[in-house]
């Protein structure tokens, strides 16, 4: 389970890194799409992990 958690954090880092990379190349549409497409599942994932930690 610890590995899965590390993998999830890694996914957040990948998304953030990709968004920043596309912004730095002035590819705002691709960066926005990556942000918009990942914000909801990312938020739900974070909420689910916080609930798990509270348990």
């Amino acid at each position: 389970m610890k590995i899965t958690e590390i993998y999830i954090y890694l996914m957040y880092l990948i998304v953030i890194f990709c968004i920043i990379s596309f912004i730095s190349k002035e590819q705002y549409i691709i960066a926005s799409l990556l942000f918009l497409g990942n914000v909801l599942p990312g938020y739900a994932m974070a909420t689910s992990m916080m609930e798990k930690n509270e348990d």
Partner: protein
Amino acid sequence: MINEHIYRRFNHTVAACFVIYFLFPEYILGIQREYYILIFWIIIVTVEYLRLKQDLKILGMRDYENNRIAGFVWFATGTCLILGLYELDIFPQSLAIATIIMAAFTDPLIGEANKKFGELWGAGLGLVCSFLIYQLIIGVLFYAIIGSIIAIISERPKIKWFDDDLAMQIIPIIVLTILSLMEFSPDLPQEILGGKL
């Protein structure tokens, strides 16, 4: 326990980040970047082999995936094929980027919409989502309309040996690439990110 359903969805949408490949330099550590596609695919297939044959436990698998190739392998195969064929100058970069992002976001959206509002809404919302992504990236209405319709049709059949994760990438990009070669078709922007960096 981590919510496996949300975990699966998040994995799917993060797959859109594969498009970072187009920002990679031509050579990484002295090796041509296309070889990394092959290495990545071999790693994915090895993990899947271990899961199926050696009972490796991976979070987020569906029950019916116990004895068949999992969705992540199909998706990775589709993406690796697109990237590989882009390197061979078969697929244009614009279509490759748009299709990878479209497949990563539209498939989970259809799944969620199907569950919450029914299949008609699922197909409708999927159509809108894929149309918007194609239109925003390619910017040509002709390709956005056809690409989104093909993507939704590709998602429908449930075939054991040709998963929708692969079909939603490969079928639309093949159709759009062929169309772009036709005389009657509008011009397609080939490179969005300034070609091979």
